[in-house]
């Protein structure tokens, strides 16, 4: 169904072969991912702990608190994702929403509607 949207210039060397998805690359193995989570967690903790050794110069008071940026960054991002999700209920449409079926000419195509019918009648009368 996405064919119309694909970029179909004449000289693009697309390689559209799809292999069966593999889950055995070392980077996507569950063991690696578990390790990555641990490393990520350690770095997260380190950035907060670092604040005990480095004085943060704040402008508004709140921004000097230990871990303020961590909490603020996390909560605002969750807020934005949730807000986007809620807005999506109202704004999302199927991705062919704006597509209009190509029409050859109003004379040929609009035989269905009322005014088109008049035209067909006229044509028939003329032919007769």
């Amino acid at each position: 169904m996405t064919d119309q949207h694909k970029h179909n210039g004449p000289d693009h060397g697309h390689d559209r072969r799809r292999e069966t998805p593999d889950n055995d690359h070392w980077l996507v193995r569950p063991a690696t991912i578990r390790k990555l989570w641990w490393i990520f967690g350690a770095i997260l903790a380190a950035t907060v702990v670092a604040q005990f050794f480095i004085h943060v110069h704040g402008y508004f008071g709140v921004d000097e608190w230990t871990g303020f940026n961590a909490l603020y960054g996390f909560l605002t991002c969750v807020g934005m994702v949730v807000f986007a999700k809620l807005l999506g209920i109202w704004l999302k449409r199927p991705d062919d929403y704006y597509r209009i079926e190509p029409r050859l000419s109003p004379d040929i195509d609009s035989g269905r509607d009322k005014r088109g019918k008049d035209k067909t009648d006229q044509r028939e009368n003329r032919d007769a």
Partner: protein
Amino acid sequence: MLEFVLPPAFLMIFGALLIGVARPALRPLLALATPLVTLYFIWQVDDGIQQTATFLGYQIQLVEGSALRRLFATVFALMAFGGVLFAFRQSKWWELSAALLYASGAIGVSFAGDLLVMFLFWELMALFSTVVVWCGGTESARAAGIRYAIIHLVGGIILKIGIEGLLIQTGTVEIRALSLDSFATWMVFIGVLINAAAPPISAWLADAYPESSPMGGVFLSAFTTKTAVLSLILLFPGQPLLIWIGLFMIFYGIIYALLENDMRRILSYSIVNQVGFMVCGIGIGTELALNGAAAHAFAHIIYKALLFMSAGAVLYQTGERKCSNLGGLFRTMPVTTICGTIGALAISAFPLTSGFISKSMINSSAAAEHMAFVWFALVAASAGVFLHAGIKFPWFVFFQKDSGLRPADPPWNMQAAMILFSVLCIGLGVFPGLLYSLLPYPVDYVPYTADHVVTQLQLLLFAGLAFFVMLPMMRRTLTISLDFDWVYRRALPWVVGVLDTALGRARDAVTRAVLLVGANTVQLIREKPYGYFSSRSPMGRTAIWMAVLLAVVVLLAIV
């Protein structure tokens, strides 16, 4: 130093036109050399008005130099070179030529000494950016190009109305700081903001750019919005309204990018988001803020081009543009993955990238002015940038679940362009002095302090945590999101359709009524021919009329 200064824009126009008439073998060479030669001439432009000319009876200032103008012209020329390097073996010559003409419009605006010259180059950009959109070659590119052209031509007319008003009211159209106190300045303001993708007319950007060719998107990402940023710095520095417009653009970009599925449309929304940071900085208007806006424009052009290059490379190699069909490409496209990730880190303003040294100037300027709300909004937005562009783009394109696609890395010239811009992103981040020395005001800002690095890392990494925690809520769907363009793509056609149908019916009804009355009259006359003159009433009307006639004749005879 040459006595006669050649306007750098003219040089690029000349080079772009030469591509068309040159032998095919020479075209790539010309396309690559033109931006570099132009760059040399950009650096020959001294401060102050360098060249005037007479145009339609007006004295116009073709070239005016300043540090700010050279900064923007430099990055436009660099961008043109990088774009050509990315595209020259894949694009048709007319796409390269149109892209260079588009870039020359941007360079012309950079050096425009008055609004008339600015307007001329402004329209040149509108014209050839439309051609670049059309080079996408698909039916949807054709339609999007027409919508794009209409928006920009209308914007151009609004700008022109403002310029004419200024000319009549003040007698001068020199580019200087204006205040929003008359109809004319408002028109100039609106005209410029349309090109900056300001609300409510932001939709043109995400509508048109993703329809271009894999190469065309790289050029489109750079010029139009950033010349608007330059124009705002020159014309409306410190205009408080811009702060709020900028903040709106920032969050609009994040929210729409979060909802989006098309990879280049995600990047398009993030252009609006990044331009929002610049517009906000211009609104704050201090030296630090204006420096920040200019620096951010410079850094942004490079990393956004890099992101569009990596997306273009994926599109070129796979023909897929939807995140829901992509994923797992890191296996076979290592260079593209690394370069795309560097671009994503730079847009997120990670330490040691160009975004870090430029965006933090804008945030710090809000703090220095004690604008608490603005500062908190900007910090939240900085986290949001990492969310919508910094992780979302590389994650859904190069990682996530395996799509089974096994494309190779793109041809060498595309890789070379990506590597060049990656090096620039990192280089500017590691040596901030390179960029700071080009800024319009003296810089005493130090980006790399321990507390700044720590707080920024906290902010970004915990935003990253939020992304992976919320991942189930961000599943890609085959959808688009309604935007303001719904008004002119659906609502207005619907209203016109309703009016057209109603008027058509009214016309039919009138026609029928007239015919009915006429037919009835004729029928009346035909079916009752004796109804009037020959009715058998006692006297007979004819007899009365004969009597009257006789009386008249008798009277006349007597007289």
